[in-house]
């Protein structure tokens, strides 16, 4: 028996995606800084609540205020309460009034992490004249040594749901590839008239439709827990919905023929026309609205730099795994149709 290596590859990759995609922890991040302003005076403290950090066990934790020009002011005292909670205090002289600072936290295990524009210095009536020299320092690479652990980036709204990249986003990519393969077979059918191309085309389209439905479901689940609604007026979401309508139309069209040859011919033509007719939408819609998805409207999802290399390590295998699994399901369908045709049994294809 021929070993279908690609099916095994699909399974292995999918298992890898599940394990790595859920198992690899997130980078540390700061969820809350309170209060968000520092008054002038001696040993003013703020409380930092963080996520996925090791303040107690990760080596000495240091905290700095960072000015725009990359000058750092180290906290005079850091009191660690739990792994995720600490209090840092500074003596704030009067010359820092109305300056805005980022907060940088570092320990050996977690590496450095930053909250941009976290605090602002305000005057305080009691200690209005508190003047002391400020010891700004420049930090070196060794001070802010990065952690070597393999971790996914932390984003404040997304949190752990950044892992949906491997499932939701990869699903769309795989769907698109499956539709493209189906389109290729539709074109080949019209050129050669071989029935096999029609069978492959409909099988791949059905796998694509499955992925489309799953993409919509996982997408609305994700949207519910990040943007707060099941459905949003978002470009990519609505384009996906439109594509679903068209492919359902394709299935409806196929079901309304008795003659197989005619069915294959007409549905292949419709498949090609619909695909081409929707391409302009990619250029039209950006001219009309803004998107929540990557690359639009300052969204912290995944554009360019956001898709960092640790995400890629799982994201690309996930796309390949889903394509392979989709192809597998398409092949099952194809073989059923072929068997029925050989035995001259009529089934809905």
């Amino acid at each position, binding site marked *: 028996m021929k070993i279908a290596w690609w099916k095994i590859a699909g399974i292995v990759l999918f298992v890898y995606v*599940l394990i790595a995609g*859920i198992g690899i922890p*997130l980078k540390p991040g700061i969820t809350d800084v309170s209060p968000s302003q520092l008054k002038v005076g001696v040993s003013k403290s703020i409380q930092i609540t963080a*996520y*996925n950090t090791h303040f107690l066990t990760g080596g000495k934790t240091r905290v700095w205020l960072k000015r725009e020009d990359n000058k750092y002011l180290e906290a005079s005292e850091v009191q660690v309460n739990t792994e995720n909670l600490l209090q840092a205090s500074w003596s704030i002289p009067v010359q820092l009034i109305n300056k805005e600072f980022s907060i940088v936290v570092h320990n050996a295990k977690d590496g450095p992490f930053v909250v941009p524009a976290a605090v602002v210095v305000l005057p305080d009536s009691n200690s209005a004249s508190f003047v002391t020299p400020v010891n700004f320092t420049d930090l070196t690479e060794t001070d802010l040594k990065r952690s070597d652990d393999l971790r996914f980036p932390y984003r404040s709204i*997304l*949190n*752990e*749901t950044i*892992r*949906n990249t491997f*499932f*939701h986003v990869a*699903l769309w990519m795989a769907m698109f590839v499956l539709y493209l393969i189906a389109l290729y077979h539709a074109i080949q059918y019209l050129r050669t008239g071989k029935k096999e191309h029609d069978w492959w085309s409909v099988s791949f389209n059905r796998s694509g439709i*499955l992925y489309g*439905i*799953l993409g919509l*479901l*996982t997408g609305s*689940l*994700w949207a*519910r*827990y*990040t943007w*707060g609604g099941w459905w949003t007026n978002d470009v990519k979401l609505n384009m996906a919905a439109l594509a679903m309508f068209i492919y359902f139309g394709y299935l409806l069209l196929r079901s309304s023929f008795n003659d197989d040859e005619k069915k294959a011919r007409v549905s292949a033509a419709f498949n090609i026309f619909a695909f081409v007719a929707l391409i302009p939408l990619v250029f039209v819609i950006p001219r009309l609205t803004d998107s929540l998805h990557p690359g639009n409207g300052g969204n912290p999802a995944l554009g360019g730099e956001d898709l960092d290399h640790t995400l890629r390590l799982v994201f690309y295998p996930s796309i390949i795994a889903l394509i392979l*699994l989709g192809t597998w*399901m398409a092949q*099952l*369908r194809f073989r*059923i149709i072929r*068997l*029925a045709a050989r*035995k001259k*049994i009529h*089934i809905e294809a």
Partner: protein
Amino acid sequence: MLRQWVNCIMWGSWILFFSPSSAMAQGHDSDFLRSTGKIYSVIAGVVVIFIGISIYLWKIDNKLTNLEKHINDEHETS
């Protein structure tokens, strides 16, 4: 018979999984799917994918069963 059972289990698990989230859908941090950095919404997504693929495979399976029945019938008659 078996088909009904499986449908029952599928829909049951679906409802079980999503009822707590829809009951508390008003957006509090206490929401189960929001706890521990929203990790459970990721798990829910994976479960959705798994259930979806299972249903799809189930449908293909049915199709194949029908086909087998047809082929067997033909064998008997000829």
